């Protein structure tokens, strides 16, 4: 039954991918990309990868769709058709797909218990997590502690992406007069004239924030963690920006606070790592943070997850505001 459902979702995924490639309308492509992310999130979920599914649904289907739409507002809605070298691209695609198909012959079959992924380090993680860290969610233990270096790298990738977008988009500010959208002036300040979305949106924002905090601090016990929570909290503020307008949101959480979140989160992660060094152990070894190694590990994971959440929130909201400010200028 699970396999049948998985194959069904993968078939829909292929259809969506072909539709994304075929469409010339970029708005349709963005919407289809959101559907693609939701489908793959459902697929992750039936493969029991709840953490990855939550990330994909929050970031892939939610935030990136919003950011794509923000980017789309700055450009035209239709794809410019380049003159394609059809024969050449066909040859490249054929060769590449044959190579990929050939590579799949060496892969273990679906659900094979002897697959390398189940034999390599995974049994060690599953066995040692209760002893070393003592939290129910092994994914968080692996992500935060055992593979802390990788997560540190991811946080800095997000941070670098954030400052990159800020450099690119806030380079030229001011009235340039290239606003070609024919909206009435009132539409620029959110949905102020629409009572129903405004009331419902204001009702939902605190619940989304609360859920974001729950996902942030429940990551040790259930699916969740800093990345998902950051995306959810950013989504709450984006919803607030849609109903109350940009200005109001920037008054509630100014750009300086966002910069502080971005830098502070990455710094918090690094400082927790360095604290391990100064207390006489290795970088990102949290065992020495408390008198008891297990509670030290738990404290370290909570701190670095908070850092991840702060950076992700700051970066996503900064990117959103950068696009929106560009649109307004």
């Amino acid at each position, binding site marked *: 039954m699970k396999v049948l459902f998985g194959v069904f979702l993968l078939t829909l995924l292929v259809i969506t991918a072909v539709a994304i490639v075929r469409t010339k*309308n970029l*708005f*349709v492509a963005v919407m289809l990309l959101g559907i693609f992310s939701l489908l793959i999130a459902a697929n992750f979920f039936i493969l029991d990868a709840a953490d990855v599914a939550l990330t994909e649904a929050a970031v892939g289907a939610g935030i990136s769709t919003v950011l794509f739409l923000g980017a789309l507002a700055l450009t035209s809605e239709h794809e410019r058709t380049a003159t394609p070298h059809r024969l050449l691209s066909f040859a490249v695609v054929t060769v590449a797909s044959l190579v990929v198909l050939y590579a799949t012959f060496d892969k273990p079959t679906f659900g094979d218990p002897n697959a390398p992924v189940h034999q390599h380090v995974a049994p060690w993680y599953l066995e040692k997590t209760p002893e070393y860290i003592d939290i129910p969610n092994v994914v968080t233990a692996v992500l935060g502690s055992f593979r802390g270096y990788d997560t540190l790298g991811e946080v800095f990738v997000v941070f670098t992406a954030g400052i990159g977008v800020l450099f690119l988009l806030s380079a030229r500010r001011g009235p340039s007069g290239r606003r070609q959208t024919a*909206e*009435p002036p009132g*539409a620029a300040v959110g*949905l102020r004239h*629409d009572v*129903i*979305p405004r009331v*419902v*949106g204001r*009702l*939902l924002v605190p619940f989304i924030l609360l859920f974001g905090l729950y996902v942030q601090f429940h990551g040790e016990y259930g699916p969740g963690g800093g990345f998902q929570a950051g995306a959810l909290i950013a989504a709450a503020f984006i919803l607030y920006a849609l109903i109350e307008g940009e200005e109001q949101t920037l008054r509630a959480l100014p750009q300086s606070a966002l910069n502080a979140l971005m830098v502070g989160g990455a710094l918090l992660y690094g400082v927790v790592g360095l604290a391990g060094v100064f207390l006489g152990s290795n970088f990102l070894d949290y065992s020495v943070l408390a008198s008891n190694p297990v509670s030290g590990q738990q404290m370290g994971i909570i701190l670095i997850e908070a850092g991840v959440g702060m950076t992700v929130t700051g970066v996503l909201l900064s990117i959103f505001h950068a696009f929106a400010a560009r649109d307004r200028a």
Partner: protein
Amino acid sequence: MALLLDIVSWVLLAAGGAFVLVGGIGALRMPNLYTRMHAASVTDTMGAVLVIAGVMVQAGLTLATIKLAAILLFLLITSPTSSYALASAAMLAGIKPDAGSAADLEDSP
């Protein structure tokens, strides 16, 4: 008793599935944006309510049922709002609610 609950839940699930199917056919076949939205809203209301009710009967009196009730409440609040926002955006974009005219089919996204 278990059999009865199973029957009730399957009837609810099947009815929900039927409403989703009808909504999908309507969204494909209706002539313009507003009638299509009208058809698609069936999936949000009857479809979602019946499917979630069916799953709730399966789950019994557990925490899962309370979570499903919360999801249902969330859907019942948000989906009419998003339908409203979509229709309002379409009105602002200048699409006329002209039942039967196929003219706005081409430019409706």
